[in-house]
Structures are given as C-alpha cells and as structure tokens.
C-alpha cells in the first residue's frame, strides 16, 4: 500500500502559514508589553499571553471551539457574514498552531528586546530617528538572534501541534489531518509502518529547519 502524502503537504502548509502569523503577532505583542509603563498591566498581559503554553493543548482547543464553534456567536458571525467556516476546516489547523506556538514567539522576542541596552534605543530617539525606524533598524537587528531562536521554537511547536488541532480542526483525511494526527491515526489502526514513515519525515523536517535557522542566526551575529 502506498503512503498517503497529504499529511505532509497539509503540515508544511499549516506550519509555514502559522509561523508567519505567529512571528508578527508574537513580535507585536512582545513590543507592546515591552513598551508598557505600568508594571501591573505588564504582569497581567504577560500571564495572558503565556497561558496557551502552560495549558494542556486540549484545554486551549476547548476554548477555541467555544469561541469559533459553528453554533457560537463568533463562529456563527463569521459564517453568516463572511462565509468563513473555521471549525473543522484547514484554517482551524493554522488557528490551533498559531495559538499554541504564540507564547514561545512572544516570550523569546520579549526577552530579546529586554536585553537590548536601553541607552542605544534612547540614543536613536535623541538623534531624531522615528519610533518605526528605531524598532526595525536598531531594536530588531540587535535582538535578532533571540527573536530567531523564538521563531525556531514556535515553528517546531506549530509543526508538532496535536491536541488543540484535534479539538478544533478534527482529523479529516486530506483536509485537517496533519503529520502528528496521521501518526496517531496510523497507530490507532495498527499501521505501525505507516506511522514510522510519518515519524521519520516529521523528525527530518524539524531537524533541517532548526539547523538552518541556527546557522542563519549565527551568520547574522558575526
């Protein structure tokens, strides 16, 4: 029997789109919290943004279903006005991966921003540089190694996402069955050889990505 290749395609598509979304969301959230003056607000938001990391993915999945489910106000609204169905569609795999990998991106980026010498940012301001330029031309390049390692972690986490995906996207063959779900399904139906093949592919992709990104961040540094 030939192996079903669709989980590979779905996983790659999901992981790629979700890391792009997670990257910008995570960096934006990190910058927002980094620039907050109030310590209380910082602590509260930080806790909120980190929550998906510490919750079991099924709990995160439960919340996603609760919000985006077809009979829920937001889910209903999206279907009625935009004809967008989230639950049990391919989009749901992306949504699950973004929510679960977001805290890793956010925390790494925020940590990296906090390591940047505040005088260097102040120097940019006294030189008249716009906040936009200070962020993209000074803060981001200096924080880059930390931001990139966060992105690597987030990508790997998104690629391996299982629990929340199963809850909100289901396990529909050729549609929402990502590699981790394919491994589970194969094992569940006793096809250990198929599962093994998916595992090898999953390990391979993860390893290549991590090595590539590490190499890239080292290049940048020195």
């Amino acid at each position, binding site marked *: 029997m030939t192996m079903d290749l669709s989980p590979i395609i779905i996983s790659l598509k999901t992981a790629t789109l979700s890391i792009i979304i997670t990257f910008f969301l995570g960096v934006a959230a990190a910058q927002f919290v980094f620039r907050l003056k109030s310590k209380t607000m910082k602590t509260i938001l930080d806790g909120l943004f980190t929550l998906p990391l510490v919750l079991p993915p099924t709990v995160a999945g439960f919340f996603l279903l609760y919000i985006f489910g077809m009979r829920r106000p937001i889910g209903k609204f999206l279907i009625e006005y935009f004809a967008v169905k989230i639950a049990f569609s391919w989009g749901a795999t992306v949504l699950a991966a973004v929510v679960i990998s977001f805290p890793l991106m956010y925390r790494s980026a925020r940590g990296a921003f906090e390591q940047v*010498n505040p*005088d*260097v940012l*102040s*120097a*940019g*301001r*006294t*030189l*008249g*540089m*716009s906040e936009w*330029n200070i962020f993209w*031309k*000074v803060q981001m*390049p*200096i924080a880059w190694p930390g931001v990139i390692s966060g992105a690597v972690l987030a990508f790997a986490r998104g690629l391996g996402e299982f629990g929340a995906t199963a809850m909100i996207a289901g396990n529909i063959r050729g549609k929402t069955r990502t590699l981790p779900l394919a491994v589970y399904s194969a094992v569940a139906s006793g096809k250990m050889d198929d599962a093994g093949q998916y595992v090898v592919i999953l390990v391979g992709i993860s390893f290549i990505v991590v090595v590539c990104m590490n190499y890239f961040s080292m290049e940048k540094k020195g």
Partner: protein
Amino acid sequence: MALSVHIKKKLKDFELAVDFDMDEGIVGFLGSSGCGKSMTLKCIAGIETPDEGRIVLDDEVLFDKKSGINLSPQKRKVGYLFQNYALFPHMTVKQNIEAGLAASGKSKQEKKEIVERLLEQFHIKELENSYPVRISGGQQQRAALARMMAAEPKFLLLDEPFSALDAYLKEKLMQEMMTYLNQFKKGVIMVSHSRDEVYQMCSDTVIMHQGMIETLGKTKEIFDNPGTVNAARLTGCKNISRATKTGTHEVYASDWDIKLTFPEQTEIPSNLTHVGIRAHEIHPIVSKDTNLKDMDSNESIKLNTMDCQLERISEAPFEMYLILQNKSGKNTSPLWWKVTKKEWQEIGEKVPETVELPAEHIILLK
C-alpha cells in the same frame, strides 16, 4: 542660547528638584554617583519625564506640566552623549553617523558630504567600515560625538564622557573634546563625578547632592570657596572637621581638637558647621633652628598650629600623603597632608612635629 530647567521628579530614595538656568558655555554637574545628575540630563533630553515643572530651550518649551507640553526626544534636538556611547553595535561607524542624519530630510548627496566631513573632522575616516566592538574606547567616543553632531543638536548633554576610558587616554581625549566643544559654540552640560574633568573643562560648576542643586557658580570660585561640606568633598578637600564659632575671629575644630584664629578682616558666619583645609595647604614646621626662613615670622607661626604624630604614610607616584594625628591624644580624626616628593626631600624626609593650618587656606563651610 539659554536653557532653563525647573523640574521635580520622585525617585526611589529621594526627590529630584532641579532649578537651574544657563546661557552658552560648558557647565559641569558635579556629584557623587546616584545623586540625580544623569536623571536630570535624561529629563532635559526627554528620555525621562519629570513629575512637574518646566524645561525651556531657546524660547522653545520642551516640557511644561501645567500646559501639558512634553516634546518627544526626537523633536527636542538635544544631543546626548551616553556614558558608554551607546553606538549601534550592528552598524559600522559610517552607518552610525548616517543614522544621525536619517531624520534630517537632506538629499542623498548632502548626507554623503556631511558624513565625509564628520569622518574627517573626528579623525575616524579610516575606521568608517569598522564595527563599534572592534574599535577602542577613545575611537568609540569620537564616533559617538560625530553621530551626535550629524543630527545638528541645539544643545549638548554629556553623561560621564570619560568614565569608560583608561586613565592615560582620558587626559588626551579631554583636550580633544575641548577642541570640538569650542567649535560647537552652543550650550553644553557635562555630568561628572571627577573634579579634575569639571575643573579643566567647565566654565561653570553645579554641585548636586541627593537630587538637589547645592551650589552653583563659576568653577574657579566654587573650588576656592565651596561653601558646603558636600561641595568641599566633591571638589577634593580631604580634610573636613566639625566646627563651632567660639569668638568673633575664632573657631574650634572639634574633629582635630584645634582652635583656629582668623585675621580681623575674615567674616566668620554664625551658622558655620564645618571647616576644611586642602591636603596641600597644610604647612609643616620642621623645627625652629633648621627652618631659618620662618625665623622672622615667629609670631604668626604660633597661631593655628598642631603638635602631631605620624599615623601612616601613603605614597603616590609623584607625591606623598602623610596622615597625621593630633598629639593631644583625644579621639581626633587625622589630617591628610599632601607633599610633593621634591618638597619631601627638601625637608629631609623628616616628619614634622608641628603643622600649621594657615588661616587664609581654611575653608569655612555650612
């Protein structure tokens, strides 16, 4: 050219309350670490926001709590030289200077010319493609100065500009900096905890203590007559004793257990709390028969003298410190007497049994 700063800001241990006006020239802010000097600079530059007050530069209001004005640092056009220079580590020297021009709205050609001119002026042309970590502290300082000047500031703030440098470089760079600052011809505030830097570079001095301006005036005058105990310490006065006025022209210095008599023209303030004498102003009286020069002025020698014994000698490269105790044996604090090695040899390297604290060199402090 005028800067007017009247601000208050609550800090962790004390309240910063600075009231100060200046015209052009270089003003030195002298104070110990954590006295609020740097915070004052940051408030002027707009990096920190005061709790209340007003900052005006050249008729432009930079900050005014009452009318809700708080210009961003970008709009203030105040140059800031950071203690560690805060160069952009991922940019070359040239790119750093270009960053200072980013907001100028000048044409590409103009920018190029300005960068070239600054690279030449600050002698960093050959370093244009180097990254900040690869160049020395002095070169970093010049690169940071060039970058600051590129933004065409209306006023300069220098935060401990020499503290990150090796001692041997410091002297040379101080002279260099003077040259650049004299070309600038606008107002400059330099913050420092080094009296030497302030004395050599600044026309006016502000003494800061615990967030407050304690004294301000012409540098020379402040060093001659510091007025307060903190100012005396910061200007390098090694010997300070508690003191009480005991007569119209008499003061008792309790830490040294000595009665000091002043000439008639000296006004001794009644709220005097301390007296001081700089270590090099103490005068040795070796012994009557060998000190022929002082034979005819016996009368004056009798005043303000102290019989002393040596506690310790501390030797520096070019001078000696003799730490002397009053022989009276009470719980007194020692006097530091500074003597150059040449003078030390001239008196035969003999510890004097008596020293004089000449009345004209006693600093009266409140």
